[in-house]
C-alpha cells in the first residue's frame, strides 16, 4: 500500500547519518560570511567631503548630517563642516549609501552583532563610526562601479584646492 | 492588432493611437467593452491615475492565444461615478473594489462594492493626491471593530 516507498524514504534518511552535522556553533564560533556580505557601516572621517548625497538616497531616513568641529576632525577638504551620523535602529543594510559616496569613504564591514541594551546606544555619531573603521574589522576595498577607476585607498590625496 | 474595426463600428466616438483607444464620453463604455469581449478574454489590469480634478482610467485587456493587448482610456471628473464592467468580465470584480478602496470611485451596478485592502471603518481614500495624514488616522487602532 505504500510500505515499499516509505521504507525507501526511510532508507534515504538513514543514509544521511554518514554526513557530518550541519550545525553552526554560534556564538562560540563565528558564522560563515561571504566576501560581499553587507554588515555594519564604517566611515573614514578625514576623507569625507560633506556632500550630503548619502542622506538624500537613504530609503529608510537613517542618515542625518551633524556639524563637526573642523579642528577635531582633521578634514582634508570639507566646506560645510558636516559628516553623516547613522541610526542603526532604522538602517536596513541595503548598501545604496556605500555605492553613491563619491570619495568612497563609507564602507561595509563584516560585523553583524551590534545589539545593545538601550535603544539610544544604536545611534552612532561620526566619531564612533571612525573608531569602527580603525578597529580589527578591516573594511573591504571592493572594485568601484567603473572598471577604469582604481579601488580607493584609505588615505588618498583629495581636495587639492 | 488592427484597430480599424473599432473605427468602422464607433465612428468618431473613439480616437485611436497605436493600440490605445480614447473614449470621448464615458457613457459609451459598456457598448465598447461588449464589442471588445468578442476578441479578448480577460481584463488584465485597471490603472487609475489622479490628475486633479480628473481621474483617468486605463483598462488593459488581453487574450490567451497570442500576445495582443488593447488599452482603453476614459476620463471622468472627481465627483462622478461610472458603470461597472464586472457583468462582462468577471475578473474585474476585485480590481474595481481596489479602485474604490484607494481612490473613492463608485462603480454603478457592482455586485459587492466594499473595501478590500483597508479595514471597513478607515477614514479617507489614501491614493488621492490631496490626502493628508490627520490625527484620527495616526491614532486609529481598530480595537472597536466587531468580528
Amino acid at each position: 500500500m505504500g510500505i515499499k516507498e516509505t521504507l525507501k524514504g526511510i532508507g534515504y534518511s538513514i543514509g544521511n547519518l554518514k554526513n557530518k552535522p550541519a550545525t553552526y556553533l554560534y556564538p562560540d564560533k563565528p558564522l560563515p560570511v561571504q566576501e560581499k556580505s553587507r554588515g555594519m557601516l564604517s566611515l573614514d572621517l578625514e576623507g569625507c567631503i560633506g556632500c550630503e548625497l548619502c542622506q538624500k538616497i537613504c530609503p529608510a531616513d537613517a542618515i542625518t548630517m551633524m556639524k563637526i568641529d573642523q579642528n577635531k576632525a582633521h578634514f582634508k577638504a570639507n566646506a560645510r563642516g558636516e559628516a553623516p551620523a547613522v541610526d542603526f535602529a532604522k538602517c536596513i543594510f541595503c548598501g545604496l549609501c556605500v555605492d553613491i559616496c563619491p570619495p568612497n569613504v563609507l564602507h561595509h564591514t563584516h560585523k553583524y552583532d551590534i545589539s545593545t541594551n538601550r535603544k539610544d546606544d544604536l545611534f552612532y555619531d561620526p566619531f564612533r563610526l571612525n573608531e569602527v573603521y580603525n578597529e580589527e574589522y578591516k573594511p573591504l576595498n571592493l572594485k568601484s562601479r567603473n572598471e577604469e577607476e582604481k579601488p580607493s585607498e584609505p588615505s588618498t590625496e583629495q581636495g587639492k584646492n | 492588432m488592427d484597430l480599424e474595426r473599432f473605427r468602422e463600428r464607433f465612428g468618431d466616438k473613439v480616437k485611436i493611437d497605436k493600440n490605445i483607444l480614447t473614449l470621448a464620453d464615458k457613457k459609451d463604455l459598456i457598448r465598447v467593452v461588449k464589442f471588445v469581449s468578442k476578441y479578448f478574454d480577460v481584463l488584465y489590469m485597471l490603472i487609475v491615475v489622479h490628475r486633479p480634478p480628473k481621474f483617468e482610467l486605463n483598462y488593459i485587456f488581453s487574450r490567451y492565444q497570442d500576445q495582443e493587448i488593447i488599452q482603453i482610456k476614459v476620463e471622468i471628473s472627481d465627483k462622478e461615478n461610472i458603470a461597472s464592467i464586472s457583468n462582462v468580465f468577471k475578473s474585474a470584480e476585485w480590481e474595481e473594489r481596489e479602485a474604490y478602496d484607494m481612490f473613492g470611485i463608485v462603480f454603478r451596478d457592482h455586485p459587492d462594492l466594499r473595501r478590500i485592502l483597508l479595514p471597513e471603518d478607515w477614514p479617507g481614500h489614501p491614493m488621492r493626491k490631496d490626502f493628508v495624514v490627520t490625527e484620527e488616522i495616526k491614532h486609529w487602532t481598530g480595537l472597536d471593530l466587531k468580528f
Partner: protein
Amino acid sequence: MGEIELNIGPVHPATHGVLRLKARVEKDTVLGGDVEIGYLHRAMEKIAEQRLFNSFFPNVDKLEYVSALNWEILYASVLEKALGIDIPPRAKYIRVILAEIQRIMSHLIFIGAFGQDLGNITVFTWALRERELLMDIVEKISGGRLAPMYLRVGGTEYDLPEGFDSMILPVLDRLEEKVNKDYKAVTYENSLFKMRTKGVGVLTRDTVKKYGITGPNMRASGIERDLRRSEPYFVYDSLDFDIPVEDAGDSYARFMVRIREIQESIKILRQAVRALPKGNYINKQPWMFKIPPTEAFVRQECPRGEGAMFLVTDGGMKAYRLKIRSPSFYTVQAMPEIIKGARVADLFTIIASLDPVMGEVDR
C-alpha cells in the same frame, strides 16, 4: 440540519501567509466561502510616489520574498523602457541566469510547504537543504540572502565572481539527482500521496479563462502559454527548452508541472552558463535622473504567473503612478469557486497546490 461557518483565520500555520477563509460547511462538504485579504498591506504604491527611482529597489525586494530577484528585474526593465536605453549582452545573460536560479528556489519552497501541509515534515527539511546551496551562490554574487539588491538601471551592480562555472555546475548536478531520485519516494511516486491529491480541486479551462489565472496553475489545466516562448525578452529565443503541460487540472497535475519546470530550468542554466559572453556588465546611468512624461508597460514570467508593471511619469525625479500586477491576486479571487464540493480535510491540499504568496497579493 444547518450549515456552520468555519473560520480559517489569518493566523494559521497552513495558509501560506495571512489569508482569511470563511467556509460554509455542511456535514463534511464545503458549500462555498468568502476570502478576505489585506492583513499584510504595506502601501507600496504610495511609497513609490515619494522615493527617488533608485531608492525604491529595497521595497521591490520585499514584494514576493521567496524569489526577490525576479521582481527587481521587472522594475529595472520598466525603468529602462521609459528611459529608452539598451543593456549590453552580458547583462542580459546574467539576468536570465539569476531569474532561473530564483525560479528553482521558489519551486523548492513550494515542494516543502506542500509536503508539510499533508503532514510530511521530512520533505520540508530536504527541500530547504537544497535551497541553502543555491542561497549561498546568491550571497556570493550579490551580498544578501533574502534581499539581494543586485540590479541597477542599465545592468547589474557587480560582475559575476571569478570561477562562477565551477561554483554552480556541481550544485546543479546534485539538485538534479535529488529531484529525480530522493523526492520520488516520498512525493510523486508514493501511493499515499497520489491518493490524497488525485482528483482533488479540479480547475477547469473555463474557470481559468474567466478569472485570468496564469502561470503553472494554468498550464496544469491544458492551456499551453508561456511568456518566455510567445513574447521572448532578453535571450530566451536563443535557448532551447520545453513547456510542461498537463491535462487533468487537479492538485497532482499542479505538482507535476512544477517538478518538470525545475528540470527545464536546470537545462536553461547549463546552456546559459556555457554561452556567457565577455564585455561590459552595465550601461552606466546617473544616480538621480529625470524621466520625461511618458507611460511604460512591461510584463514578464514570474514563478507564479505573469507579473506586470505600469509606470506613469511627469518629468520629475519621482514616479507619478506605479501600478503592480501580481499573479496571485487573481488566483485568490478564484478560490471560492474551486473549493465547492470538496471535503474539509482537502481544503488545505487545494490552498497549498495553488501556491499564493500574501506579500504580493496585498502589496
